[in-house]
């Protein structure tokens, strides 16, 4: 039982912000006569220290047990005043704000009308205040561990930061090695660092860090629970190689009947691998994996007279009987760093990517130019059947970006710079090449980017403003058909090779992760952050954070920065060891709940479950709220036919009197 309400109403002048259009004295006088109102005062700035002191003094001396501040929007100072009343020992949820500034004094000019409205707003707050209930913010222990999904540079960086801070990290990667997209790159713009050189040490650190449990070739299957207390189930897919025994010597791959007959994902299909393989030489862990979709033993049940890999493996690490393994563990926070897909250039058929082998994508160019790539760093492409060293080269930017016709209206943010970089690298490799870049705009916004772009242009790389309409073959040349939009000249550029600067897209398999973690997509289909500006690494699911390109295209520095941001956000509950649960949660009256499950259907957070209770000898199903998951939206309560589930502070019995006060003739 709470005491009989004794309400103090404080009407703020807000300088003249309120008092210019609202007769604050009249409002206070009106409030004074409302039921349960003990006193009503006005003050120039309620949010100021003396303003707050006024409230505190009255709580102390007058024994107020409810406070209403009629001032600015609750979105401004609700927390300020909650804290103030709490300091005097009052439950913070006994504070109610009447918004008479943003939604009254600032939007009306007739003083009489504005005053009348302010009175109603205050009456509505009083009506609710009388029926408020004290709420407790509960705390639960947080598991001092984190799950990172995806071991590209974002996942690696976040893992290392969290692990270095002393927390356990489970780093789960779908493919056989960590490294992600960055491992595929040759050099990085604008510094031209060798990508592998800066990434590999971090990959190795990841594998050897005592606090990191690395799970490659693994997928997260199920996530239950809530911030601080997630239970995660991971499927470690069978590699058919005992990683504890495998030395990574590679004899098996050489012996494989399918050696060099399967196209390599890492080399974007330009190189070949075996059915038992290491994705790339610096892969971490340096353990071989059998590709179950190609291996003859696994697809047909037999491989010649016997699998050669097994024969070749001195260590005896091959095990065709290996099964997937499910591991379960608890974490307090989760970082999603699942990366991106590159735009599939065949979706722009006018560029002939599917038809001409010398039309390649930017990522293929990375492999081509890489000394560890399929050509050993030599720039060679097939022009029809003939392998050539291209001398006349065109880059086309914004392929699959800023293009509503393929559904991607966003800028992919990296293509301008990687094109500049690749142009530079080509110039190094083929000094006499004629290099042209077709662009819509050049966006060189990062640190050192504009300088780099300038440098590349000075290296006789010609930038032509125009968005090519078509690429076709004429003789043994590719023709890029384009209009130079600066001079309005139609051009036909005959070249040996075209590099399509493909953009970044959300991963095709992101739906799985969305369902797993109840994430949403933004308009560009990447994962939606909690707030585009102020909570860029948070998601709507507490305890789940985003890092890297899964949230939107970004370059390596931004990815690393965001990963570090996500890591530090994720570490908040881990470091505190506790999480505070929203106090304004829904609650079920189990005596009237009829167990229909409507609320379970509408809850976006899966915060409601059905439980069986014994009601005086009868087993009945009722809804129960997991307070740690509930966000207090209240959707459950408006579908509840028996009004049994109600969000605290926004109960029907608190809202109906507000309606009466606003509508009413009181």
């Amino acid at each position, binding site marked *: 039982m709470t005491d009989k309400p004794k309400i103090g109403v404080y009407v703020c002048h807000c300088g003249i912000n309120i008092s210019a259009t609202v007769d604050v004295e009249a409002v206070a006088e009106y409030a004074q006569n409302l039921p349960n109102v003990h006193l009503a005062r006005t003050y120039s700035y309620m949010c100021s220290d003396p303003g707050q002191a006024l409230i505190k003094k009255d709580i102390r001396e007058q024994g107020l047990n409810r406070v209403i501040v009629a001032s600015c929007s609750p979105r401004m100072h609700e927390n300020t005043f909650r804290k103030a009343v709490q300091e005097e020992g009052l439950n913070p949820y006994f504070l109610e704000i009447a918004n008479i500034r943003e939604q009254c004094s600032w939007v009306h000019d007739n003083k009489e009308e504005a005053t009348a409205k302010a009175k109603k707003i205050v009456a509505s707050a009083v009506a609710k205040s009388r029926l408020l209930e004290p709420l407790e913010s509960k705390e639960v222990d947080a598991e001092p561990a984190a799950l990172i999904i995806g071991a590209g540079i974002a996942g690696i960086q976040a893992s290392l930061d969290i692990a270095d801070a002393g927390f356990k990290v489970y780093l789960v990667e779908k493919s056989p090695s960590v490294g992600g997209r960055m491992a595929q790159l040759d050099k990085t713009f604008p510094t031209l660092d060798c990508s592998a050189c800066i990434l590999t040490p971090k990959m190795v650190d990841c594998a050897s860090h005592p606090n990191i449990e690395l799970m490659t070739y693994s997928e997260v299957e199920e996530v239950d629970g809530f911030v601080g207390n997630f239970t995660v189930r991971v499927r470690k897919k069978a590699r058919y190689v005992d990683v504890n025994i495998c030395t990574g010597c590679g004899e098996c791959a050489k012996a494989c009947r399918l050696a060099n007959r399967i196209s390599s994902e890492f080399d974007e299909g330009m190189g070949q691998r075996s059915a038992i393989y290491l994705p790339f030489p610096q892969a971490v862990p340096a353990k071989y994996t059998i590709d179950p979709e190609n291996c003859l033993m696994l697809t047909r049940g037999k491989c010649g007279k016997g699998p050669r890999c097994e024969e070749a493996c001195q260590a005896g690490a091959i095990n065709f009987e290996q099964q997937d393994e499910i591991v379960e563990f608890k974490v307090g926070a989760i970082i999603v760093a699942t990366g991106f897909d590159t735009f599939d250039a065949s979706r722009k058929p006018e560029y002939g990517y599917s038809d001409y082998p010398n039309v390649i994508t930017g990522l293929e160019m990375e492999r081509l130019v890489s000394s560890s790539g399929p050509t050993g760093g030599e720039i060679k492409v097939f022009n029809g059947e003939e392998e050539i060293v291209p001398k006349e080269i065109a880059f086309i930017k914004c392929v699959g970006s800023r293009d509503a016709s393929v559904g991607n209206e966003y800028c992919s943010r990296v293509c301008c710079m990687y094109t500049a970089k690749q142009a530079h690298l080509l110039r190094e490799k083929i000094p006499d090449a004629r290099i042209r870049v077709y662009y819509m705009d050049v966006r060189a916004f990062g640190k050192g980017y504009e300088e780099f772009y300038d440098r590349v242009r000075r290296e006789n790389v010609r930038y032509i403003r125009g968005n090519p309409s078509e690429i076709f073959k004429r003789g043994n040349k590719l023709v890029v058909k384009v209009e130079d939009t600066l001079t309005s000249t139609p051009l036909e550029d005959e070249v040996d090779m075209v590099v399509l600067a493909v953009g970044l897209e959300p991963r095709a398999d992101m739906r799985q992760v969305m369902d797993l973690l109840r994430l949403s997509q933004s308009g560009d289909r990447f994962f939606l952050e909690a707030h585009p500006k102020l909570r860029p690494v948070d998601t709507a699911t507490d305890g789940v954070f985003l890092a890297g390109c899964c949230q939107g295209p970004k370059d390596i520095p931004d990815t690393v920065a965001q990963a570090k941001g996500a890591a530090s956000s994720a570490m908040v509950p881990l470091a505190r060891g506790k999480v505070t649960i929203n106090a304004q949660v829904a609650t079920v009256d189990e005596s009237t709940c009829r167990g229909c499950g409507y609320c379970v259907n509408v809850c976006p957070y899966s915060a409601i479950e059905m439980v069986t209770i014994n009601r005086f000898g009868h087993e009945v199903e009722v809804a129960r709220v997991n307070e740690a998951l509930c966000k207090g939206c209240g959707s459950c309560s408006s579908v509840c036919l028996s009004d049994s589930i109600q969000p605290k502070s926004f109960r029907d019995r608190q809202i109906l009197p507000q309606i*009466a006060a606003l509508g009413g003739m009181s």
Partner: protein
Amino acid sequence: MSAVLLNKDKWPVFVGKLSGKVWVPKVEDGDAICFAPLSGGEAELPRFCNTRIPPKEIVFPETETLYRFKAGGYEIKAPQPDEKTVIVGIRPCDARAMKIVDSLFHWGVDDPYYLKRREMTTLVGLACSSPGPNCFCTSVGGGPASTEGLDVIMFDLNDYYLLEDITEKGKALLEEAEGLFEKAGDDALKQKDESISDAESKINRSVNVEGILEGLPGLWEDPLWKRVSASCLGCGTCTYLCPTCHCFDIQDETEGFEARRYRTWDSCMFEEYTRHASGHNPRPTRKERTRNRINHKYSYYVDKFDLIACVGCGRCINYCPVNIDIVDILRQVKEAL
């Protein structure tokens, strides 16, 4: 008591001369739902068996303000009924019912609202000429021309109404329209007697209440209650349409600083009728509630006032959605004795 004749041509003049608010049965789409204040257009009383809603609502309104009050000042305003009322065309069973209910509102405390309305009301009954399929008034002490509770009784003699005053109030009412009447001759009186016996003969449902009144307490745990209540929906049709049911609930309704306390019909067939604040319900199922309804009418009320609180109007049978039939229940009670 004197009998007079009123030519039906003069009906509108007659009702027009009555002082006070005159209520008559209202028929719409061939169905008499309830009594309604005279609108002035009525050429004569409509043909009807009986209204679905009994005229008890005129003296015992479904919702009635007891008093109003204001926060702070405790300013209490209690309305007082002060309107003279005539109910014309009330059936003898419903008039008897009022008389039966009077005892309750006199019991211990005089209920000023009800009693004042009763005092202001004159009942001009219309004897039954064609009882309904479920009428059994003759089994419970009434009859198609019972005058109990009536001030005036009327008989429909085709072109004429024959009116007889029963009480002083009735006599005074007839005096208000004195010039309109003709003297009732022997023919008319004979016709009246014939119509009564004709109506009585058309009543084809009956209950032998002998033994039931005393026997009911002994059947408290009898399985019959479960049986007869199994299909009950727990709605208030039987009780709300019953002319003798008189239970009410008292509620407050507030708006702003003002409030009113009112009473409104309640039904012992509702689950929350006996539900305690704790949630405990001494009549937890429809079985106990059905048992209570029968006992109240045929046992408790008899003990207290020596009256059966059932006039055999048949409404509860006619309108029960699931054919719960008080005559049949009483038959089963009788069998179980």
